[in-house]
């Protein structure tokens, strides 16, 4: 299929088929999630479960790829489904206009091979990790604040977020993004790094950020991979 012609210098035909057979659940369809959905759809991940109970508002327009003036007030999950269909009609999309909860987690995440954490609150990240670990699937997590971002990959038996945030009870709902806000270029850069990790996990090749945290600070052009354990 010529749609993937430019992939084939880096991804074999067999690997492309593997991506077509893969199923990924993206939780949160804002600054990070919008970018991740765009990239996973373009590279050809066959089934996407897209989760967000929110609707677009004007404050999203500065950075969220899926938000447009015409879509203000529209469900993020609905817009994400439309965007994937416009990019790549071969992809099956399950759009969930809901926030992930203990009650719906099984239904929403039940069949994905990888979950992607594109959430915007620390407490919800811990919940998502719990759900991913129960489902026995890896979780690719990204977080941003201002010009700073971080990415890690958590496998079912890994300590995960407690290595990054400590005890969940000691955390506020938000990190320093409450002071610094979020910028488009940082959101999309971290979304790119997350998409790269998803592809590597699905294809089983490359160095994966397991028990490691990639930290970037665009103000100082710092990119470092830190060992968490």
């Amino acid at each position: 299929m010529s749609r993937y012609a430019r992939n084939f210098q880096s991804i074999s035909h067999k690997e492309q088929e593997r991506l077509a057979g893969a199923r990924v659940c993206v939780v949160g369809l804002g600054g990070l999630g919008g970018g991740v959905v765009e990239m996973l759809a373009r590279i050809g991940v066959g089934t996407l479960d897209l989760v967000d109970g929110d609707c677009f508002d004007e404050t999203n327009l500065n950075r969220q790829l899926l938000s447009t003036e015409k879509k203000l007030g529209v469900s993020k999950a609905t817009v994400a489904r439309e965007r994937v269909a416009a990019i790549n009609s071969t992809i099956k999309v399950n759009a969930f206009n809901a926030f992930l909860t203990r009650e719906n987690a099984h239904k929403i995440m039940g069949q994905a091979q990888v979950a992607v954490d594109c959430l915007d609150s620390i407490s919800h990240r811990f919940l998502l990790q719990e759900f991913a670990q129960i489902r026995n699937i890896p979780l690719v997590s990204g977080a941003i604040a201002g010009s700073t971002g971080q990415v890690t990959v958590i496998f079912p038996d890994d300590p995960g977020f407690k290595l990054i945030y400590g005890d969940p009870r000691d955390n506020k709902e938000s990190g320093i993004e409450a002071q610094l806000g979020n910028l488009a270029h940082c959101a999309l850069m971290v979304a790119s790094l997350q998409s790269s990790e998803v592809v590597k996990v699905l294809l089983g090749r490359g160095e994966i950020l397991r028990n490691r945290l990639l930290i970037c600070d665009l103000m100082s052009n710092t990119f470092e991979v830190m060992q968490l354990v």
Partner: protein
Amino acid sequence: MISVDLNLFATLRSFLPDSPKTMTVPPGTCVMDLVTQLAIPEEDVKLIFINGKKEALSYVLQDNDRVGIFPPVGGG
């Protein structure tokens, strides 16, 4: 005295001393001492990396250590 290379990220950057990067501290100084000396609120210190590896506030600094301190990042 020992020298450490100091990197403070994002909101913590404002706590960097006037002559940043390399700091001189007495032997036996731990990261918590450094945080106190720089007047960084402890609740703003989420991750400490020494030479690229996560460490605790109690870590005792060694000569030429590369110290990175990060606040909590949770936005999406």
